């Protein structure tokens, strides 16, 4: 099946089985391995991407669902070589250890802040609760999201 969509701002056309998982399209077909797979069954959130500006799990979507969609992955959130404020906050606040949950966690946080620009700590914890992290105990991730929300320079980024 021929599918056309926008990936990180670029028009993208692929010809794949309509039922191919989006995670495989991204990682294997398009060699964009920033999006991670941690379970394949929608339980861990590591494959979180933005589809039409809302968070979605790439392991639970099939290629056909991409037709006409605007897709953003971790590779698409820097601007002019500058980190997205959430990426910057994750680095500065020590929110990254093994880093395998990080791309999904950042994408879920972008989605959270777009819906709720000034979340409380409890709202942050709830907002990222679909994303599992086994290394950090979440505290530094919560601090990073709070810091990014507090930072003024949001640059109108996604």
């Amino acid at each position: 099946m021929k599918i056309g969509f926008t990936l990180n701002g670029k028009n993208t056309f692929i010809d794949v089985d309509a039922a191919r998982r989006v995670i495989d399209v991204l990682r294997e077909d398009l060699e964009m391995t920033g999006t991670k797979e941690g379970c394949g069954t929608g339980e861990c959130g590591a494959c979180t991407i933005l589809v039409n500006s809302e968070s979605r799990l790439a392991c639970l979507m099939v290629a056909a669902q991409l037709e006409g969609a605007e897709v953003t992955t971790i590779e698409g959130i820097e601007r002019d070589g500058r980190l997205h404020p959430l990426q910057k906050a994750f680095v500065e606040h020590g929110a990254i250890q093994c880093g395998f949950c990080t791309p999904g966690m950042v994408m879920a946080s972008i989605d959270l802040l777009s819906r709720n620009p000034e979340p409380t700590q409890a709202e942050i914890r709830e907002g990222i609760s679909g994303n599992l992290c086994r290394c950090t105990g979440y505290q530094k991730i919560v601090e990073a999201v709070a810091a990014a929300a507090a930072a003024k320079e949001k640059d109108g980024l996604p």
Partner: protein
Amino acid sequence: MKEPENGEIERAGYDIGKTAHRADAYAKVTGREKYAADYYDGEFLWAGVKRAGVPHAALTGIHAEDARALPGVIAVLTHHDIPGENRIGIIRKNQPVLADTRIRHSGEAVALVLAENRETLKDALNRITLDYEALPGVFSVEEALKETSPRIHEDNPEGNVVKAVAVETGDSAKAFNECDAVVEGVFEVPAQEHAYLETESGWAYQGEDGTYVIVASTQTPFRDCFEIAPVLGIDPAGIRVIAPYLGGAFGGKDGITVQCLLALAVLHSRGRPVKMWWDREESFLAGVKRLSAKMHYRLGAKNDGEFHALECRLYYDGGAYSPLGGEIMTLGAEHAGCAYRIPNVSIKGWCVYTNNPVGGPFRGFGVPQVTAAMEQMVDMAAQRLGIDPLAIRLKNAVRKGDRNCLGVTLTNSTGAVECLEKMSSHPLWKGRAAWKEEAGPFKVRGVGVACMAHAMGYPPMVADEARAKIELTVEGKIRVYAGVVDMGQGNASTYAQIAGYVLGQDASAMELVLPDTARTLPSGSSSASRTTYTYGNALIEAARSLEKAIIKAACERVPGSVAEGFLFLPGKVRHTPTGRELLLEELAAFMDDSARVTTGYFKMPVVREKLDAIYMGPHLIFSYGAHLVYVEVDELTGQVDVARYLAVTDAGRVINPQVFAQQIEGAVAQGMGYALTEDFKVRKGRIVTRDLSTYIIPTSMDIPAIDSVPVEIDEETGPFGLKGAGEIGMSGPLPAIANAVSDACGTRVFRAPMTGEAVYGALIRKKEEGTVL
């Protein structure tokens, strides 16, 4: 280890004791970092494993014809296709790479398939059928130890015992009669699944020189070569293992997962690279687990609270193979008395084979199990004697110069008391009574503490050593060849910080080469709270040698200069008397290639007494911790909520406060999961919790704010005074929470995890029996 000799001069680069952002953070947060699971280059093949699906059977036939006939299937391999030895194992070489005559656990690998794509691979695996005769299984330590039970390894002279150890100091039988109070308890802790986000994965190919190259998510690249080579029937020099950053491991990738299978696959891949990546269910089924344990404890004390006698009987379930199970249980036995001085001790431990999933290392090795038991015993003794739980710990905690339960003199930094004292002055300790009183309707609140010790490094029988290598590149960068894997804990980054500090460089001047058996030097596993201690010491030596070499080159460039006149600055050295600056790049060009590379070696010190106190010998250096937790229990459901957590840690001096806090917070979170929700359930050898919706690890909603406070006592043998911090935080949460639940409910749950159901059951029993334990 002392400060570098030129420690007094001003430095502009990395510092010790100050947070530096992790060197790996940028590549990870942008998705650029390439993990072992991220290789998809060229015309590669997928490899996958047919697993037994039965826990104990005689394997009589493997039918792979249908799978082989499937278009897109390149090969189906069985034990017949193994050119070398079909047995691996770190201590006990008894685990087949592919089962031949016997199946010992349901995740046993039986056949290996190579296919063009993942869909074909799955199809082919489903088409393989097995002929087997089911054998009666052994699923508990009690069954394993029965004379009449089936033997899982027929050639094991010890029956189903992997390893048994005994520690006797003083005269415990006599000493119990001298005690004013004796408490007893039987504790059970479950198997625990690592649940790293990156499941077992790897990529392999044959290099142009014939070397088999395996890029794997492994904690042990150097040891892996010696496991893989005999399977192929070749010399270990023909194997190269590369370990990129790991997507979590926590002990679960200490040893062979995909490596041997990938190497075998490459023999049949027709020159194409091969990828293997276990899915979550396969990871749960075939990956190692923390050993479940059953522990019988007796603790005797005098009226004033002084511990006088301890008796423990420890039973660890090693599962079907248990590559390090005997050693895991042994470390548990060594720590059975935790951080206390007890003169009369009788500790016996057994690790047994069962037909349960393979047991293996998990952060803390065998120590979280015994700490869970001992720290509850301490509270039970305190309660019996009417002594405050912190006071009884302070009274008995080991101090420098004391002998521990094995009779070993603690000659190095020993901060158990300092941790407890720091806790006693913390607002969370002081404010505990007021917080408890504020419980709402149908809620009860409790506060619990635990005190821990964790040995650093390998036992004396295994040299704990590292070989560091560092280079001034022709581009003028300082390149550190990290010999120990970074599985997420940030040690590679700390290596850059250490070398950068010694050489006055900042992050921009540093480069890291991750473990690669062809490029970095053998430095042991990423485990045992040793990664920064052992390698860091070796690296300081290497960096100082390089410093001397660079200064020598600089002296040659500045006529009449002496070595003391040079100051290292990021990217350059300055001759302070003349103000002349020389770029490192410039100096590199004038240095021999051999002079630009230096190495350092370090071997961890070991005990000089009581070497025969326990199998493999006792440890010398320990990290310590004291934890405090606030819990609220819902009386209507038994649900336990953790409200606040304090972790005080003696892991020596802290090199990078942020990385240190990461280790403590992460370990505490895993410990909370172990305490409250994580129950790796196996019924008759078949796994019940097969995914992350049934095996529940903590989410961001389950972990409270964690206060991490270091007690920075200088460990004179450590790099800049450091001791290991990776594991010490893991052992505290279970007993601290158990003690808090007991404080809240007036009854104790002797089995973990303390799920709502378990706590509710205990509340009901207490009501019915009217007893207080």
